[in-house]
């Protein structure tokens, strides 16, 4: 019976999330940023083709050194303005999808109506799950589209190398497509985890905008601390990164599987624990 109630609640929450205008806005914004990335990548590869053709005409040989889909799509490179923009704001997009809903429903009093029927724990778990899924979708779908659309005009040649300490680095060479799709999945998980961070604030923040900005602010604080720490230790040595901003990009830092998984668990379970603690603390029913 209890399980049945939970699944019904989850279904309702997922339906509410899918009908949220902000989820679609986040998706559109993400796609817009990555459309810019695609445009820039298209210009870049066209210039590479022109250069190669001119190079051949001049007898200078030819080559597409470094131009590979698997190294240039947004999930890996972040070399274009559009992709850099996306990789900067993804926590905001994730939170925008549905992360604000708990705070919104609590302030509007909808929470009381639901919690009294299904229980606060089931409600919050269903809410947390729906927030995770919608946040993940808001980040992953534009990423996936970027990969697939870029594959239409970018050479799928061998990818550039990753360090051994990068998660799934061997797969990057053996099966670049599988690796790229795995990275999409990682973005989904991090998007979901970032969206869940909205629950850390509970109902303390009364403004929806502030709730949406909370994950970004927390991740940026971690990023700043990580950067300061790294610079104070050894800026050259390869170090583990604790910043999700850097973890998702596989750029320059060690991000082994245990670290990725640990970070995801801390973000998701930690935000759930803190959020639920506040639910109980502010219990009205």
């Amino acid at each position, binding site marked *: 019976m209890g399980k049945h109630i939970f699944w019904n609640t989850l279904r309702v929450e997922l339906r509410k999330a899918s009908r949220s205008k902000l989820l679609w806005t986040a998706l559109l914004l993400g796609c817009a940023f990555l459309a810019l990335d695609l*445009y*820039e990548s298209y*210009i*870049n590869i066209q*210039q*590479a*083709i022109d*250069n*190669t053709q*001119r*190079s051949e005409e*001049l*007898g*200078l*040989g*030819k*080559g*597409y*050194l*470094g*131009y*590979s889909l*698997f*190294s*240039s799509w947004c999930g890996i*490179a972040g*070399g274009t*303005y*559009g992709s*850099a923009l996306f990789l*900067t704001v993804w926590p905001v997009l994730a939170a925008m999808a549905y992360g604000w809903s708990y705070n919104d429903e609590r302030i509007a009093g909808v929470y009381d109506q639901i919690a009294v029927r299904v229980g606060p724990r089931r409600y919050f778990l269903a809410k947390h799950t729906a927030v995770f899924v919608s946040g993940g979708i808001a980040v992953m779908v534009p990423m996936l589209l970027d990969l*697939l659309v870029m*594959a*239409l*005009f*970018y*050479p*799928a*040649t*061998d990818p*550039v*190398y990753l*360090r*051994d300490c990068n998660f799934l680095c*061997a797969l990057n*060479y*053996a099966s*670049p*497509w599988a690796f790229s799709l795995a990275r999409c999945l990682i973005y989904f998980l991090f998007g979901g985890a970032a969206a869940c961070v909205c629950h850390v604030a509970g109902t303390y*923040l009364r*403004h929806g905008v*502030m709730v949406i*900005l909370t994950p*970004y*602010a*927390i991740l*940026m*604080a971690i*990023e*700043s601390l990580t950067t300061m720490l790294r610079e104070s230790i050894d800026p050259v040595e390869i170090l583990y990164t604790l910043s999700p901003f850097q973890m998702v990009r596989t750029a320059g830092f060690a991000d082994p599987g245990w670290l990725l998984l640990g970070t995801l668990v801390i973000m998701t379970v930690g935000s759930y624990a803190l959020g639920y603690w506040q639910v109980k603390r502010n219990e009205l029913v």
Partner: protein
Amino acid sequence: MEKLVNFLKRLPIYLLILALVGYGVKRFMDQNQPPEVLSDVIPTVPTQVPTQPEDPASLLKNVVSVGGYFDIYPRYGDGHFRCRIINATVVQDASVCPPKELFYDGTRFVRMIEDGGGYASGEYEEWFVEGGAYDHGDRVILIELEMTNVDFVGRIYDGSFTSEDGYFKDPYAIQPYMPIQLADLARSYVVQGYRDFKEYDCKYFSELGKYGEDDPETIGSEQLAIQILPGETKTCTLGFLVENKDGKPVDMSMLRVILNADSYTETGIFIELGLENEEG
């Protein structure tokens, strides 16, 4: 009044969040250029054909052609290799950027593209960082391969990196060529490869790869992959340092070139060229 008090109570947190967001925005602005500027960063090919040295013959020594063309047919498919091994002398430092005619084989100049230290997209300016590996006066062996109808993966190694079955121990060195998918880009995108050294992980180099260092300890292995479309013929020249400009020979007794005519399956379709230098 109560609303104002509540707002003021939360104000520090709001300000902290906004400050962190502002910091993120500033950081982004500092680290990223607007799209218009990006196009200027991409290097362009020089518009003039490089000029030959005024008196190339005066720069040459010991130019001996050691072989005419010989033909190799892969075991499977209808591909065809045409090989020629040439002794040549470096007539221009590879550190010259962009490299011009680097080798002279007695009849013509051969240009070799250096890959240098750059490995990431767009780092063209670093292509020539390691160009000093070939100096003016070095003696090299050039292997010229003319390839028709083959999907080619060539491997060059000195034996120290290989397991008994002839594969590289380093799994990253035996990656098959990734064919282009989802897009009809048959006209291009044929040139990518790997290059492995003991001190490096993996680096790209271009169609005209090079091999060899002054110090035998640093000799590693490299691989290049070229896809040639049906009916198409391409030429690739590989260079191997055999004697540096001071007359110091490089031990090449272990050097082998393996041509794999089927890079998709990687199933032992090897053609081996045994090479020995004058000392070996």
